[in-house]
């Protein structure tokens, strides 16, 4: 018998994650570990952990991680990368972390074109705190703080932060992908690989927004959550490359 899918080297074995059944975090965590291994970056990788559902990611990632206060990941990553440009630095953040409290840090690290990667998990709610409104919550979407559904009159519109920073000259690669099935998961891995290579080649800032299922707070089964990403979420947040300024790629 020959094992076809070896355990990802930079992912801790035998640790039960705290994530809900069917949560997209577990899949993206595995992808990050796989890509670090494939690009041989694990030894010099420093992950920056968000505050939010993935706040315990350092218990699952098997490479060096520092935890950030809510929203401050890209500022911390800036400090690390500027001090040690030889290290591979990326942040892993949720929609609240990156595009609510961390908006200024996100925009300005992108505008400075920091040579870091940002993995942005967009599940349209605040998961860890129990399913509140997020900047990316869809219109009419019910959350614990939009009980009658998000109403732009009071709660504003779904925020397209990745599209905003994609305009910046300093942002070399920006893509939105979706964990909504095998194909989407493969594209997610390809996108993260592109982003990581962008940093390795010293080209500058890259950001991958990953639409990710949150069965518990969407009150859907894991399988229906995958479908919801495709059929509903992607209407508001279409997937695709938002900018690719890598040389020879324009």
């Amino acid at each position: 018998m020959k094992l076809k899918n070896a355990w990802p080297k930079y992912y801790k074995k035998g640790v039960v994650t705290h994530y809900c059944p069917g949560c997209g975090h577990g899949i993206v965590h595995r992808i990050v570990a796989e890509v670090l291994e494939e690009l041989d970056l694990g030894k010099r990788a420093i992950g920056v952990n968000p505050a939010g559902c993935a706040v315990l990611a350092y218990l699952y990632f098997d490479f060096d991680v520092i935890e950030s206060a809510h929203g401050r990941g890209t500022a911390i990553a800036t400090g690390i990368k500027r001090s040690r440009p030889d290290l591979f630095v990326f942040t892993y953040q949720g929609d609240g972390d990156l595009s609510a409290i961390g908006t200024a840090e996100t925009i300005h690290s992108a505008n400075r074109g920091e040579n870091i990667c940002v993995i942005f998990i967009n599940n349209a709610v605040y998961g860890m705190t129990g399913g509140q409104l997020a900047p990316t919550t869809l219109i009419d979407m019910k959350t614990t703080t939009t009980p009658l559904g998000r109403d732009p009159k009071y709660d504003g519109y779904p925020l397209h932060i990745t599209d905003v920073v994609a305009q910046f000259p300093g942002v070399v690669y920006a893509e939105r992908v979706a964990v909504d099935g095998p194909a989407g998961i493969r594209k997610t891995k390809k996108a993260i690989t592109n982003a990581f290579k962008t940093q390795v080649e010293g080209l500058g800032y890259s950001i991958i927004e990953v639409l990710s299922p949150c069965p518990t707070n969407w009150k859907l089964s894991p399988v229906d959550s995958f479908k919801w990403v495709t059929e509903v979420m992607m209407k508001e947040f279409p997937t695709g490359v938002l900018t690719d300024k890598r040389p020879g790629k324009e």
Partner: protein
Amino acid sequence: MSKIFISGNHAFAEAALRAGCQCYFGYPITPQNELGEYMADHMRKLDRVFIQSESETAAINMVIGSAATGARVMTSSSSPGVSLKQEGISFLAGFELPAVIVNVMRGGPGLGNIAPSQGDYFQATRGGGHGDYRTPVFAPASVQEIADLTYHAFDVADRYRTPVMMLSDGMMGQMKEPVVFPEPIGKLPDKEWALKGRGDGPSRYICSLILDVVEMERHNWKLVRKYDEIEKNEILYEEYMLDDAEIVVIAYGTTARIAKGAIKRVRKDGVRAGMLRPITLWPFPKKALADLCARIRQFVVFEMSTGQMLEDVQIALAGRADIVFHGRPGGVVPMPVEFARIIYREYQKMTKPQI
């Protein structure tokens, strides 16, 4: 060793460079803009890191990132900006990461003004952020001391793996004085605890999240043991004309400079006044103060605030002596004659027989 005529703000920066500060993250705010500008001129020439960040909140988090890699790192701001850094400072304390944070105080609360003040004493010495932590706080009273204490602050930060606060004010930041700077540091301390990528070893993480309450408590008491160690080893204060003093002033920073003028003035009129000047505001020189109670009955506290260090004095003296407080908040800088009048009045009351 030549003297350089230099402003306080520039001296903070120059001393940091000489202490091997590898990264500086700042944001413009009067009255300390010149510090960031100095860093902008020098850091990149020395192949070190300088960023003017988008906010003081971002700056302190960049400090966290650099400190985590073992770099010597500094940030500076003034009162409102330092308020924005408090969360980050609490994280530095929880992470046990070394850093130097400069506060060139201005009038407050709110936007206040850009004049010198000492209204951030509580914030600095009581831990302005959340959770059980302290930060060593140094209060220079001259540009020379700015240079010496900043240089020293980096050592204290590294030795105890803690954020360290430099507390000065707009006047001292803008004022120029001749300074002899310490020699540039040779080898920087190596920090095996720093995050450098796991290499071939096990992965490590730096986090302040401790969900297990017993573990969190253990961490809290561990920090307290550190703070006790700092209290034991790092207290600094100046005794000024205390030997024959009968009335003792307690003041720090710019206020202490003014008080020295007042003490010289009243001494001419035969009033034997002296001063105990805290240089570390935390740890506060409680014992030195308490020991004075053996022979001193009257203390006068001067502050450019409505009375904050006053409470530490009250704690230290614990009712064993009388304390008169005279404060000028809001950015008003009193003249020595104003302090002299108060010392003279209190001295009269003290020595005149009570009828």
